[in-house]
């Protein structure tokens, strides 16, 4: 890796860490389980590394490793986002309050 790229990467890492700390410390304990599930799905972004390995690699071993990585990372992304959404749908307000804001996003809030 050339030094300029490395330094830029370290900047990105440091700023992302700072931003992450700021944003995540505002998440209430109420949503800690969905938070963990969401950040886990987001870190499934290693899928893009897996895609490159499985598709652009030249050796056969790389293809197989890439294939396994694509599969597990996809499970992580699809399963993770799906289940986070299912959880968040459940966090509803009181039923009477829920009706007032019966607009699209709160459909699951009051069953």
């Amino acid at each position, binding site marked *: 890796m050339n030094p300029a790229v490395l330094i830029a990467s370290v900047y990105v890492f440091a700023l992302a860490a700072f931003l992450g700390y700021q944003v995540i410390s505002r998440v209430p304990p109420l949503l800690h389980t969905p938070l963990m599930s969401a950040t886990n799905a987001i870190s499934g972004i*290693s899928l893009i590394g897996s895609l490159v390995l499985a598709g652009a690699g030249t050796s056969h071993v790389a293809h197989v490793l890439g294939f396994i990585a694509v599969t597990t990372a996809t499970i992580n992304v699809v399963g993770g986002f799906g289940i986070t959404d299912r959880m968040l749908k459940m966090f509803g307000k009181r039923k009477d309050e829920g009706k007032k804001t019966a607009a699209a996003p709160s459909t699951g809030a009051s069953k």
Partner: protein
Amino acid sequence: MSLTSYFMEATYLIASILFVLALKGMSHPETARRGMFMAEGGMFMAIVGTLIGAHIITWGWILVGLTIGSIIGIWMALFVPMTSMPQRTALSHAFGALAAALVGVGEFIIHGAEMGVVTRGALGFEVMLGALTTTGSLIAAGKLHGTIPGKPIQFRGQNAINLVIFLVMTGSFVYFWMHPSVIAAFYTMLGVAFVFGVMLVIPIGSADMPVVMSLLNSYAGLAAAATGFVLGNNVLIIAGTLDGFSGLILSILMCKAMNRSITNVLFGGFGSVIAEASADAGGEMREISLDDAAMQLAFANRVIFVPGYGLATAQAQHAVRELGELLEARGVTVKYAIHPVAGRMPGHMNVLLAEANVPYSQLYEMEQINPEFPSTDVAVVIGANDVVNPDARDNPNSLIAGMPILEVDRAKSVIVLKRGQGRGFSGLENPLFFKQNTNMLYGDAKSTLSHLAQAVQHV
């Protein structure tokens, strides 16, 4: 750079921004879902961008992998019950970490020879963290699911053996770093890291799982961030770092909520020691009949429910909500008090109660609700033990001394729903159960709660 490469980089930038916005949305339940849609959009764009811009030659493996992964993912998303959320999340950490580790191994095979010092360091870090998180998370998932006993598995000299394994792992990492031509060092590191993950988690008891889950979450994220350094890919660094820091913040919060350090959780083997320190609390536990308990609840002004892991095992979340609603219909003020480490992962109780349609405005955090116990008529403890143990506050010799608790004992009266008379997970005696104003109600929490609800209707 070709046009498609620019397009790919642009999708990565947008994805990074959307990920941050998504986590910002998480600060409130009303914006959280919209935030997740953004993150999903960002992820989709990054995937499409990669497929277009990354010079993909062979499509077969990719398409098969994406298909199998999506089918399993959708199945998980739709059918995993909320009570299994902790083991599902642990399993997910394992999958994410395994992907990162395998990408690292692949990079090593293809580009290992031409890597610079820094890239090689990042690669070693990625593979090591990825491998140990994979097996560690699998063990955690097994413990949470009950496939592996939840009690700490310990043996003589365990910490010494772990130290040796750790030294071999880091030693081979350093050796690989200095001498990239020695392929054996790389694979030794990989293999030993898999073993270390197992050894790290088996001595930890189920009650400490919230901390372990958060730590593994953090490791999985950092492994992804290291992948970003290896591939020179910023969106991987950003997303991985966000995950890593989220896990770190959660681990610190969980440790604070137990007044213990991370080292103590990892190497203390808590829960195996039979508590010599806790003297016999003396007195006897008083049982109460269902009808008397129902009477107390029905004529109370304020009732606080305190759920613990027992609520999850008994799947009693719907039953408690029904009872709560009946009481509210009678004019009783009903609240739920949630301890940060109640259950097996951060926020576990909130999710279960939300599943049962308890509005989140009724769920209170420890600091908010503690001042309210003295003015509460009945506090109902459902399958919680250590988080309401007054010894933590009053007895400096207690094993859990200093752990912040829900001060249930200050309520005017307490009803404890418990499976049997035995001690809780930690093996500690709980003086709360012997107090004058405490009454015990033994049995399965779910059926007890539904019987209580019936009895309340007949009052």
